[in-house]
């Protein structure tokens, strides 16, 4: 029993990481149909921000707190720049954005290699986050709990922004019907850039969280990006609840399968499950109802 519970917690913590990464993607993907392969490198930017801060600010705890907003700004800034330079020219060709942003991600990886060196680097977790809490025989790692809390906080924050602020209303309007939003006087170009800023910024926050569970390196983004896209595809476009449910479901499925088989077989089974799921709901778990033919 405790094994099952422990394994479920592992699954939930995998899901929390997936959720943090997929949250920004579902926003940018839903808004513009843009498939941003450089999202993984924005995660990397967030992680390196933490690393740089920790070298300059001594306390691991303080640097982590400073890193969260700063990584949001750094990654968000990169995202807004990318949108301004390239993506806004491509929004009628969504498939090509995948390839263009992949070119960008290659360059960003090499940039990281030139600045920080090819080997992975490590940060120190604050003392508070290194231990475990044991409740009724189940062990919760503190850093995993922190990531879970952070993921839920980000979902909450994003939900509030989308529901309550004028910007959120505009974003939702553009997602639902870009042309109608445009003729209603919404500057869709500006909304796009803000969406990209927020979505990429969330990638930066995810990067800070990832420094607590693994090494930081130039290729860290590519390890997560495909999984994150699968979450977005299964969850449905621009639907936060879809992403939340899917991320945790895939995380738990992955960890249960890993326990009963091997890591590699688990990956294959998860993929087959996703294809099977798309037979049942081709547009993902939650969909926007539109009148478009496609």
């Amino acid at each position, binding site marked *: 029993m405790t094994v099952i519970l422990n394994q479920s917690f592992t699954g939930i913590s995998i899901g929390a990481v997936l959720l943090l990464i997929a949250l920004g993607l579902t926003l940018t993907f839903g808004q513009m149909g843009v498939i941003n392969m450089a999202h993984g490198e924005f995660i990397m930017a967030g992680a390196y921000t933490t690393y740089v801060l920790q070298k300059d600010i001594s306390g691991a705890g303080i640097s982590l707190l400073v890193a969260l907003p700063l990584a949001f700004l750094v990654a968000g800034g990169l995202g807004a720049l990318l949108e301004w330079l390239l993506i806004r020219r491509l929004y009628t060709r969504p*498939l090509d954005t995948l390839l263009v942003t992949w070119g960008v991600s*290659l360059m960003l990886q090499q940039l990281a290699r030139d600045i920080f060196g090819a080997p992975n680097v490590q940060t120190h977790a604050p003392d508070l986050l290194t231990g475990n809490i044991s409740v009724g025989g189940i062990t919760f790692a503190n850093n995993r709990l922190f990531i879970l809390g952070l993921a839920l906080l980000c979902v909450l924050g994003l939900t509030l922004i989308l529901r309550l602020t004028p910007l959120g209303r505009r974003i939702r309007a553009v997602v639902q019907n870009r042309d109608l939003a445009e003729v209603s006087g919404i500057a869709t170009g500006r909304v796009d850039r803000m969406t990209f800023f927020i979505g990429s910024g969330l990638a930066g926050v995810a990067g800070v969280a990832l420094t607590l569970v693994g090494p930081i390196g130039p290729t860290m983004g590519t390890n997560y990006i495909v999984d994150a896209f699968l979450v977005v595809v299964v969850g449905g476009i621009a639907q936060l609840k879809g992403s939340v449910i899917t991320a945790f479901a895939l995380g738990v499925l992955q960890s249960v399968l890993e326990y009963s088989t091997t*890591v590699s077989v688990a990956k294959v089974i998860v993929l087959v499950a996703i294809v099977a799921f798309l037979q049942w709901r081709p547009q993902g778990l939650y969909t926007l109802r539109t009148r478009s033919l496609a």
Partner: protein
Amino acid sequence: MTTTTTSPIPAADTKRTVSRYERLRVPGAFLLGAVLLMGVAPLALTDFRLNLLAKYLCYAIVAVGVSLAWGRGGLLVLGQGVFFGLGGYAMAMHLKLADAAATGQTLPDFMQLYGTGDALPWWWRPFANPAFALAMTVLLPMAVAALLGFFVFRRRVKGAYFAILSQALAAALAIWLVGQQATTGGTNGLTDIQGFFGYDLGDPVNQRTVYFIIAAALLLLMAAARQLFVSRYGELLVAVRDSEERVRFLGYDPANVKLVAYVVAAGMAGLAGALFVPAVGIISPALIGIVPSIGFVIGAAVGGRASLVGAVLGAIAVAWAQSTLSDAFPAAWTYLQGLLFVLAVGFLPGGLASLVTVLRGRRTPTTPTGGTT
């Protein structure tokens, strides 16, 4: 579709009267290519360079399929590494077994080192038969593509969704191969292949023969692809790319049209993988994962996805640039590769093949993908 995108491919009946020059252009170009590949290159290049060219031509064979599925069909196939790998592994498994049999062993060398050491796994056994192994290099990739394509296209999973799924498949296969160290060679893959159907691959003469086989396969597939492009099916494929709904309303099933393109492209990638093994002597998960899978698309994108010759030349040029530049300036090459990709896809969607038209006509580059498929 709100915007009408003009296709870079002229419709088949725009030129009713064809001049003699026009009629001879395609066979002439084909003949020129054949002379260059079969006559000039083997005479002019050293053994080492000819072997490198053989490797690039394998990538070019993949590009023929990419040009069909992506350039004509608008299907962004990001998982060609899967099919390349299936073809490559099928071939390598047979060659490893043949090598082992030649030295009187029953198990390939890596299995004696890392494996359980007793019997050959059941799924390795049929590959001892050369005819079965050769058939599998093409049929296995086509079967996998047919299975995935059938489910995915029938449910109208499109565009980004399809691209991401095909990419995830490449990741899953690479991870699975790495995990099965004892039966697949794990991260190392199947290495150190000595013989090719009884001939010693260490002998330069036999290496040349392998080159000729690869060059012939490329020429043959290009001719076949061109015939497919100008056929009724080719027209239908372009129609599906540009407006799937209209094709559906006309009574065709777009799912079947797309499925054929995907399966044929997969078979070509499988054949390319199979030919890659004797030319290079190795197949490993590093050659078929996500990064190489996108790499297969790069060449076609830079050269011109919609133009068959453009895609093939692009694949060869990018592969050549990669091996020359990445040795001398590894960092600079990565920047250049990324930049090339951003510029080619972002600002010249027709690829270098459309550069002349763009410069001469001062037209804005046309978009080969309708964007929704």
